[in-house]
Structure formats: C-alpha cells, structure tokens
C-alpha cells in the first residue's frame, strides 16, 4: 500500500497550453496525493510564469497531427486563436483553472516554482517580469540538488 514516489520534479520547456497544463495537472496531482512537487521553467516554459504572457498561451495547431487538421490550415491567421478558445472553453467546463489561478493553487499547495537562470538571462528577463509566487531563479544544478530523497523522479516536458 502507498506509492513509492515521494517527490516529482518537472522541467517545463514549452509554453503551449497542452504542455503547460500537463505539467500543472501532474504537479498538483502529486501534491493532492501527499507527494512533493516542484517545477523548473526553462526556455519557452518561462512564458507560463511571466505576468504579461501567461494568460495568452496557445495550443499548437501546426505540426500537431492529433489536431486532425491539415498543417497548412493550422498556419492560417486566426486558426490557432480559435483552437485555443475552444480548448479553454472545454477546460472551463471541467473546472480547470486558468494559468494564473492554477499557479496560485500550486504555490499555495506547496509546489515550488523555479525559473531557469540561463534562460532568464538569454531572454533578458527581470525578476519583475515574473509572478509573485516564483520561489527563485536557479541553475539546473541547483534544481538537481532538490532531488534530495529516495523516490524522487524527474520529468522533462
């Protein structure tokens, strides 16, 4: 009885809605099961924790065969916005919180949120650009050191 997973570390490198929510749902799901969880936002994943960008994330309609629309159509102006709108509507029906509220829930639940120093420097971002709930800007080495107990797992998204 009882899971052997004690801590989940997520690296989120993308900012498409489906990837961001995958990370958030898994990180929150871990906390709800009494498992520790932390998220390291790197590269485009940083968009999910930038105050001005986080509510404007999109679903990818190009290069995504599971959308079942021709890639060329997916690239037309407005298609990505429409698909995003439809997906957000479906998520709202399931009572899934918007990105900003989800981050608050994660932080309140004890999930640690970290920005990747290298990516922050590369995109010339400042601490001011990020949500208040951010626990800090750290290196990947620092993040590895968070894997400090048996039963820790690391997942790249």
């Amino acid at each position, binding site marked *: 009885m009882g899971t052997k997973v004690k801590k989940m570390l997520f690296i989120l490198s993308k900012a498409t809605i489906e990837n961001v929510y995958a990370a958030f*749902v898994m990180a*929150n*799901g871990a*906390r*709800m*099961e*009494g498992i520790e969880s932390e998220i390291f936002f790197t590269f485009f994943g940083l968009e999910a924790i930038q105050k001005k960008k986080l509510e404007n994330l999109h679903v990818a309609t190009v290069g995504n065969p599971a959308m079942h629309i021709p890639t060329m159509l997916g690239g037309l102006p407005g298609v990505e916005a429409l698909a995003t709108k439809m997906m957000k509507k479906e998520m709202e029906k*399931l*009572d*899934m*919180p918007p990105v900003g*509220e989800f981050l*608050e*829930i994660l932080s*309140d*639940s*004890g999930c640690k949120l970290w920005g990747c120093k290298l990516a922050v420097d590369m995109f010339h971002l400042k601490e001011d650009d990020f949500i208040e709930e951010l626990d800090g800007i750290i290196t990947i080495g620092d993040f590895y050191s968070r894997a400090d107990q048996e039963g820790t797992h690391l997942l790249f998204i």
Partner: protein
Amino acid sequence: MKKVIANREINVNEEGYLVDFKQWDREICECIADECNVIMTEKHWEVVEYLQDKHHKEEPLSIRGIKKSGVINIKEFYKLFPGGPLKVSTKIAGIPKPKSCI
C-alpha cells in the same frame, strides 16, 4: 467489506472510505481522523461539514473549489490534513474519495 471502528462494525471500501454515510457520526469521525494522524479541531469540523454539505448537494469536490469555499484557504487545508488533503479529509468526513484530477 467490514471494519471495526469505535467498537462498531462499519461498512467501508478497500481504501477504508465509508460506504454508507448513515453510519458516520462524530465518534467514528474522530477514530478515522486518528488513523490518519489528524487531531480534530474546530476548524477541522468546519471543513468536514463543508465537504459533507457539498457531497449531499452532489457538487464535485476539487482543490479549486476549496480555494473559493470561503471556509478555508489552500495553505491551511494542506496543514490541517497532511498527506493529501482532499483524500484524507473526505475519508474523515465519511464521504467518497473525489474522482477529480484537479
């Protein structure tokens, strides 16, 4: 399956959740809480009542719902019911474990 809680035979499922809410009372509640390493305080009772009320109205429970409940905030909720708050609190409240992923 049956389990003896507070010297009474209670119907529970394989995870220890009560199957028949009519068998739930404060004494049973405190025994289950004790098994979950929770000592009931006034705030715990308030949360338990909120969860039962939601359950009886057939409104699904979620952590987002807790945030909006006005009864307790998420941080406190995690402190009061360590080790998975919705899972633990619903067990104590004698209602089914929520099926939601959020």
